[in-house]
């Protein structure tokens, strides 16, 4: 698997798209840091970007890479290599190269700017972590979708739909249901619902640092327990890990049953 991972990774980091992706983050972060002296503002802007772009690009890259390397996959499938190794290797290659782009593109400017030792170091780490987690989760989902759909157009459409669902539609539905049932106690519901969407989950991880002042304004006991202590952070991290594991298990399951 490591060998496949290595080749997929090299294959991708030599791709022009990876450079564009990485370059975008680099430019974006640099110009944000250039324009705004307030590091926390930069973190907020980047948060919006990471929550939107990381999943989107991971989804598209995942699907594209899968379809583009289809014949190559077949070549590998005929070799004496375990099936799961091939797909895990490729998946990790995609997720890894995306994460590397993200880490390099945003990390370097921040480090040059001296984020370590500043008050924003914690936020910065959370941001980095969330970007990596989202890259893994969504490229995993993309692989899963592509594995399940021979038809590229259909696979691509479905992947974008999944992204759209998690990025926008889910929150809309959540807000509607919160407004609809506002007479009932909704603390547990709202927290659970946010856990079930990896983008929301990542967002909350960042909010826990960034907007703790506002979040502390709530009286409910569940909220206070969740937000005020390390409890929320730990639960979020655990669920985020589950979110990475789940698509991986899906990939394993489907790849073991699929014809090529």
């Amino acid at each position, binding site marked *: 698997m490591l060998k496949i991972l290595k080749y997929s990774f090299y294959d991708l980091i030599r791709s022009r798209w990876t450079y564009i992706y990485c370059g975008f983050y680099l430019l974006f972060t640099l110009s944000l840091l250039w324009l705004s002296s307030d590091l*926390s*503002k930069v973190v907020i802007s980047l948060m919006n970007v990471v929550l939107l772009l990381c999943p989107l690009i991971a989804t598209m890259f995942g699907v594209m890479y899968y379809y583009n390397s289809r014949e190559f996959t077949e070549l590998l499938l005929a070799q004496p290599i375990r099936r799961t190794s091939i797909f895990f290797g490729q998946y990790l290659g995609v997720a890894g190269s995306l994460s590397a782009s993200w880490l390099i593109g945003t990390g370097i400017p921040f480090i040059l700017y001296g984020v370590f030792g500043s008050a924003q170091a914690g936020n910065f780490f959370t941001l980095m972590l969330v970007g990596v987690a989202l890259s893994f989760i969504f490229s995993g989902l993309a692989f899963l979708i592509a594995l399940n759909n021979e038809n590229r157009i259909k696979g691509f459409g479905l992947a974008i739909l999944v992204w759209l669902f998690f990025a926008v539609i889910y929150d809309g539905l*959540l807000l509607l249901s919160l407004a609809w049932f506002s007479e009932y106690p909704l603390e547990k519901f709202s927290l659970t619902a946010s856990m079930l969407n990896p983008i929301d989950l990542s967002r909350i991880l960042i909010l826990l640092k960034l907007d703790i002042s*506002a*979040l502390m*304004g709530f009286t409910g006991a569940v909220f206070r327990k969740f937000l005020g202590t390390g409890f929320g952070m730990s639960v979020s991290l655990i669920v985020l890990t589950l979110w990475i594991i789940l698509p991986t298990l899906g990939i394993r399951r489907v790849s073991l049953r699929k014809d090529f």
Partner: protein
Amino acid sequence: MLHPHIIKTLTATAFLMMAVALQGRVIEVCPECPVSSISEAIELAQPCDTVLVKKGTYSEGNILIGKDLTLFGEGNPILDGGGNSEILTIHSQFFHIEGFTIQNIGTSYTQDRAGIRMKESQNFTIKNNRLLDAFFAIYLEKSKDGVVENNFVLGQAENEAGSGNAIHLWYCENIIVKDNHLAGHRDGIYLEFVDNSRVTGNIAENNLRYGLHFMFSNDNFYHHNTFRNNGAGVAVMYSRRIDMFQNVFEKNWGAASYGLLLKEIHDSRIEQNSFLENTVGIFTETSNRLTYVRNTFAHNGWAMKISGGCQQNVLTQNNFMSNSFDLAVQIAGMDNNYDGNFWSDYSGYDLDRDGVGDVPHRPMKLFSYIVTRTPESIVLMRSLFVDILNFSEKVSPIFTPENVVDHAPKMKQTSGIAQGAETPGPKIDPAAKPGHSLTQNALTIK
């Protein structure tokens, strides 16, 4: 900024005190001295004398003082209440107390015990003392023309009912509360029916309720204080003409927590203060004709929540930077003016480069309204969906009050962020001599 008549009185006080130090006798008290108790020394003292208390622990219960004296502690003597007694109760026309550690007053649910109580007194200075584990630390009642300066007060308050205030003023006038460090009490400084007074350079932190609390007090001025991590920073209620200048309100977190709570206060000025990382920077209710100018609000949950009944308030030249929400105006139809502020999330442009954004800014977001109605929806903060909602509301307001608009948003922030009080803790100089100290005192009060 200082009201002129305060200055006049205080200068007079200082001169009088110098006279005391120069003319009176000195009675020394120490455990091995001929006079070994403070009560005895006070018994012996003539007006204008100085009682010089040397290093040692004095457990004399409640010491009553009805003379005009200087009470000076040398080498930081300790007055211990044994956990069940008020310590100094003073009724005097000229009084100076300095250099003591006063401790173990003990909680009482029946009487308001204090470390130092000034009763119907005037021309007094309470300076450079440490008050530890007090119920009420410094209690001024029906007094005037006094200074409370550079005291360090640390309590162990656990709940509001079982704790008193660090500095408590009741029916007072012309008092200066200056450079004190107040922690672990119910309120840091409490003023009820107090007029023409000044609170400056204090640090109030980790108090259960408020760092500073005004009730029914008019014509006061507080400036250069820091209020940190209290239940709420400062509450100003039922008062008029309170000027607030260059204070720092920070890290006041909690469900009912504010940097500054304004309730039925009118005709006041809030200028150049910093509100940092509070759940709510300013909460204001039924307060009219207030001017908020050149304040900075950064990293608060809500920079300002404006509840009902607030009219003719003016917000201008303030900086709103990276708050979760800048403004929540809970009722429509109030005629407040929001023009000319800097909003860090202003997205307009300034084509004519006059420093004023060409597009009006709506600081009240739809999501702020939603969260007020359905608090649990806070989990959706900063989500793309919410951003889209906010945007559409910005384009055509439906839910948020239409007149909450900055017609001339500034492109650059206003400079001059409040420094607050910087030095934590008192600077008690154990070697200080009374006369020397009084001279200093006279110099400090300008």
